C-alpha cells in the first residue's frame, strides 16, 4: 500500500507537469467503498491508468497483459502497483500462458469481493483510431461471474471517458469523465436473458457517450479545425497568462459540431461541403502564415502593445535567472527522457508513455545525484539552498519557456498584422463569416443557436 501511495504521489507530480490541465467530471458519483469495475476507453497507452489512478481517492487495481512484465523495470513497477497480469491468446508465442488466467481471474474477483476497485480496458489495446475499437467481454464476464456466487460482490461498473486534446504533445489537456455507475445486479434483473456480450454492448454504449468518436480521421480533423475557429468567437484573444478555458468546453464544442455535421451531411450536403472547404482553406492559410486562429483578432493598437511589452518584459527579465538555472540543471535528464521517447515511440499512441515513465526514474535519479554532489562539494547552507532551488527552478523553467514561446508567437503575429493590416482584415472577416455560417447551419437543425449545451 505504501508503494502504491508513493507511486501515486509521484505520478500526480509527473502528470501535473506533463499535462497543462487535468479536468475531472463525475467523481462524486463514484463510490468510495463499494466494489467498482472501471471501464475506460484506451487511447494513450500506459498514461490512461495513471490518469485514472491519480484521480481516484481510493486504491485502484490495474490489469495488464503479461507480456508487459517481460521488461524488468516495467515488471517491478507493476508489482509495486499490484497490477494483475492476464495472459492473452494473441500473446502465446511471446510468453503468455492462458492457463494461468484462472489465477488472475480469481485475483480480480477477489479484489471486487473485498469491495475494491478494478480497472479493465475493454478495448484491450491502446490505439489512435478516430473511434473506439470493439469491446472485449472480459470486464462483463468478471462482473457477471461475481453475481453467480451468493457471497460474491455486487459490483458496479463505472464507464470512463478519457479525452486528450493532443495526446502526443507535452503540456496538452485531459478531460476525465466518470459516467453514472451501472449496477450489474439490477441490470441482470432487468435483462434476465442477457449474457456477457449484451452487458459488454451496454458498457460500450455508456463509454461511447462519454468519449468523442468519429467516423473517419478526416471527419475528426475537419471538426477539430472548425472548433479551433469557433472557439475564438471572433473576439480579441485573451492576454497571455490568463486562465485557460475549460477543457470540457472544448470537447463539448467538438461533440456539438460533430452531431450537427453528421445530421446535416444527409440533409444539406452541399452547404456542409462548402463550409468544410472554407474551414480547410482558412486553416491552411493560417498554418502557412504561422498564426493561431485566435490571433487573427489581435488588436493592433499602440497602447495595448505597450502594456503587453511592459508586462511580458518584466516577467521574462525577472524570471530569466531562475528559468536559466532550472533549465541548465535539468538539461541532462530532459535530454535523456527526450532521447528515450524518440527512440522508443513508433507511433503517437506511445509518445506520452515513453516520456512519462522514464521521467519517473530519470528525474528523481538526477535530483538525488545532483543534491548528493552538492552536499559533498559545497558548504551546507549552499547545498540546502541548492536542494530547494532545484525543483523550484525546474518548475519555473517549465512555465517560463512555455510563456516565452507564447510571447514570441504573439509578437510574431502582431508584427505580421502591423505590416499587413489588409490581410488581418481579410482573415478576421473570413473567420467571422465561417463562425456565422456554422451557426446558420446549426439553426437548420431546428436547434436554437444560442441554446446552451
Amino acid at each position: 500500500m505504501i508503494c502504491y501511495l508513493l507511486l501515486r504521489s509521484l505520478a500526480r507530480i509527473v502528470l501535473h507537469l506533463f499535462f497543462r490541465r487535468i479536468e475531472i467530471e463525475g467523481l462524486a458519483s463514484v463510490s468510495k467503498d463499494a466494489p467498482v469495475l472501471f471501464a475506460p476507453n484506451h487511447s494513450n497507452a500506459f498514461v490512461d491508468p495513471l490518469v485514472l489512478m491519480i484521480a481516484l481517492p481510493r486504491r485502484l487495481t490495474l490489469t495488464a497483459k503479461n507480456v508487459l512484465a517481460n521488461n524488468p523495470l516495467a515488471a517491478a513497477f507493476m508489482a509495486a502497483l499490484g497490477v494483475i497480469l492476464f495472459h492473452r491468446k494473441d500473446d502465446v508465442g511471446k510468453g503468455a500462458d492462458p492457463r494461468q488466467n484462472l489465477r488472475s481471474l480469481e485475483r480480480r474477483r477477489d479484489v471486487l469481493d473485498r469491495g475494491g476497485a478494478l480497472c479493465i480496458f475493454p478495448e484491450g489495446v491502446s490505439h489512435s483510431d478516430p473511434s473506439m475499437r470493439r469491446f472485449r467481454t472480459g470486464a462483463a464476464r468478471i462482473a457477471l461471474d461475481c453475481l453467480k456466487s451468493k457471497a460474491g460482490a455486487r459490483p458496479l461498473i463505472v464507464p470512463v471517458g478519457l479525452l486528450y486534446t493532443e495526446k502526443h504533445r507535452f503540456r496538452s489537456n485531459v478531460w476525465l469523465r466518470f459516467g453514472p455507475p451501472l449496477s450489474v445486479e439490477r441490470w441482470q434483473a432487468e435483462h434476465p436473458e442477457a449474457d456477457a456480450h449484451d452487458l459488454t454492448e451496454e458498457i460500450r454504449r455508456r463509454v461511447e457517450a462519454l468519449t468523442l468518436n468519429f467516423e473517419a480521421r478526416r471527419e475528426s480533423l475537419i471538426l477539430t479545425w472548425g472548433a479551433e475557429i469557433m472557439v475564438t468567437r471572433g473576439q480579441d484573444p485573451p492576454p497571455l497568462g490568463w486562465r485557460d478555458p475549460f477543457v470540457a468546453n472544448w470537447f463539448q464544442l467538438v461533440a456539438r459540431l460533430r452531431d450537427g455535421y453528421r445530421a446535416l451531411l444527409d440533409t444539406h450536403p452541399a452547404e456542409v461541403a462548402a463550409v468544410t472547404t472554407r474551414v480547410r482553406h482558412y486553416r491552411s492559410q493560417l498554418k502557412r502564415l504561422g498564426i493561431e486562429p485566435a490571433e487573427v483578432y489581435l488588436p493592433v493598437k499602440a497602447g495595448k502593445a505597450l502594456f503587453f511589452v511592459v508586462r511580458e518584459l518584466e516577467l521574462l527579465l525577472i524570471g530569466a535567472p531562475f528559468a536559466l538555472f532550472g533549465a541548465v540543471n535539468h538539461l541532462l535528464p530532459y535530454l535523456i527522457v527526450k532521447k528515450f521517447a524518440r527512440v522508443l515511440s513508433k507511433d503517437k499512441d506511445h509518445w506520452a508513455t515513453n516520456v512519462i515513465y522514464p521521467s519517473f526514474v530519470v528525474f528523481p535519479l538526477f535530483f538525488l545525484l545532483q543534491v548528493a554532489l552538492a552536499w559533498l562539494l559545497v558548504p551546507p547552507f549552499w547545498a540546502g539552498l541548492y536542494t530547494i532551488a532545484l525543483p523550484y527552478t525546474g518548475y519555473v523553467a517549465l512555465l517560463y519557456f512555455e510563456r516565452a514561446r507564447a510571447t514570441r508567437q504573439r509578437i510574431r503575429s502582431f508584427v505580421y498584422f502591423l505590416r499587413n493590416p489588409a490581410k488581418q482584415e481579410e482573415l478576421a472577416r473570413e473567420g467571422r463569416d465561417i463562425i456565422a455560417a456554422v451557426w446558420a447551419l446549426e439553426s437548420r437543425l431546428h436547434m436554437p443557436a444560442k441554446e446552451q449545451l
Partner: protein
Amino acid sequence: MKSTVPLGRLFLKLHPADCAVIAILSVAVVVAAVRLPLAQHDLTNALLLHYGLLIGFLGGTAAFIHWDRASWVTLARPALVVTVIFTLYSTLGRLGIDAMPYLADRELSCIDIWMFGTDPSLALDRLLTPGRVELFSFVYGAFIPYIYVTIVLNCLGRPALERHAFLTGWTFTYAVSYLGYIFVPARGPGFLDAGQYTVMPELQGGYFYQLVVGGVDATGGLQGAFPSLHVGGSLYLCLFELSTNRLRGIIYLPLVVLIYGATLLLRYHYVIDLIAGTVLATSMLYVGNAIFLAWARARQQAGMPALPGGEDDLLPAAAEPGPNRIAPVFSAD
C-alpha cells in the same frame, strides 16, 4: 418598506473595497476625535487629515455610485482606493502611537520570547554582516516596486472578475492591518531593543541600507509594526498570483520569503508581526474573494449588472469549477 429598496441598491453600488476604506477612515476619525482631549500629543492634524480623506473618499465613492456603469470607473476606483490606502500607510501608524495611551512593543516582544525562549531580534544580531545587511536591505526595498507593479498589473491587466476580487482582498488586507496599527501601536524591535544590540547596522549598511532608512523615515519612522504589512502585503500579492497568474507568482516567491528575513534582520518587526501578517494575507485571499462574489451575486439578484463599469457579468457558478462542477457552457453568444 419602499425606502429600503433604493437604499439597498445604493449599498450594492458600494464596492466592498470602498466599504473597507470608508470603515478604516471612519475608525481613524473616531479614534482621533475621542482621544483628542486626552492624548499627550496634539491630534488635531491627524483628525483633520483623516476627516479630509474620508470626505474626499466619500465624494469619490459618490461619483462611482452615480456613474456605476461608466467604463472609467474600472480605472478610477482602484486608483483612488490604492492612493488612499497607501496614504494611510504613513499616517495610521503615527496616529496609533500618538493617540493610544500605551505602546504594545513590550507585549509583542514577550510573545516572541515566549515562542523562542530568547529575543529573536537580539539572537539574530550575531548574523549581521555588511553583506547581509545590504542584501536584505535590497530585498526590503524591492518590496516597493514589487507591490506597485503587481497592483498595476492586477488592477489593469486581468479579467474583470479577478480584478475585483484582487482589489477587495488587497484592500481588506490593508484595512484589517491598519486596525492593528491603531489599536496595537508598536515601533518594532529596532526601537525597543535599541540599547541592547551589539552590532549597529547603520555602521555596516551601504547604499541600499541608507535607501531603506531614508524610505522608512519618509513614511514616518519606526511605527506600525503590528502586523507586518511588508509580509502581509507581499504574501497576499504572491498568493493571489499563484492562483491566477502562476508564473509571476512563483517567480516572486523567493522575494516574499526573503522579505520575511529582511523584516527581522533589519529589526523592523517582531516574529509575531510576521505571523499575524501571514495569517491575515492567507485568510484575506479567501475572505476577499468570498465577499466580492457575494456582493456581485447580490447585485445580480437585485437586477443590477454583477460588476460595475459595464463589464462582463459572467459570474462563476455557485459551485466553483472543479472536479465535480456542473456541465460547462458554450453558446453562440
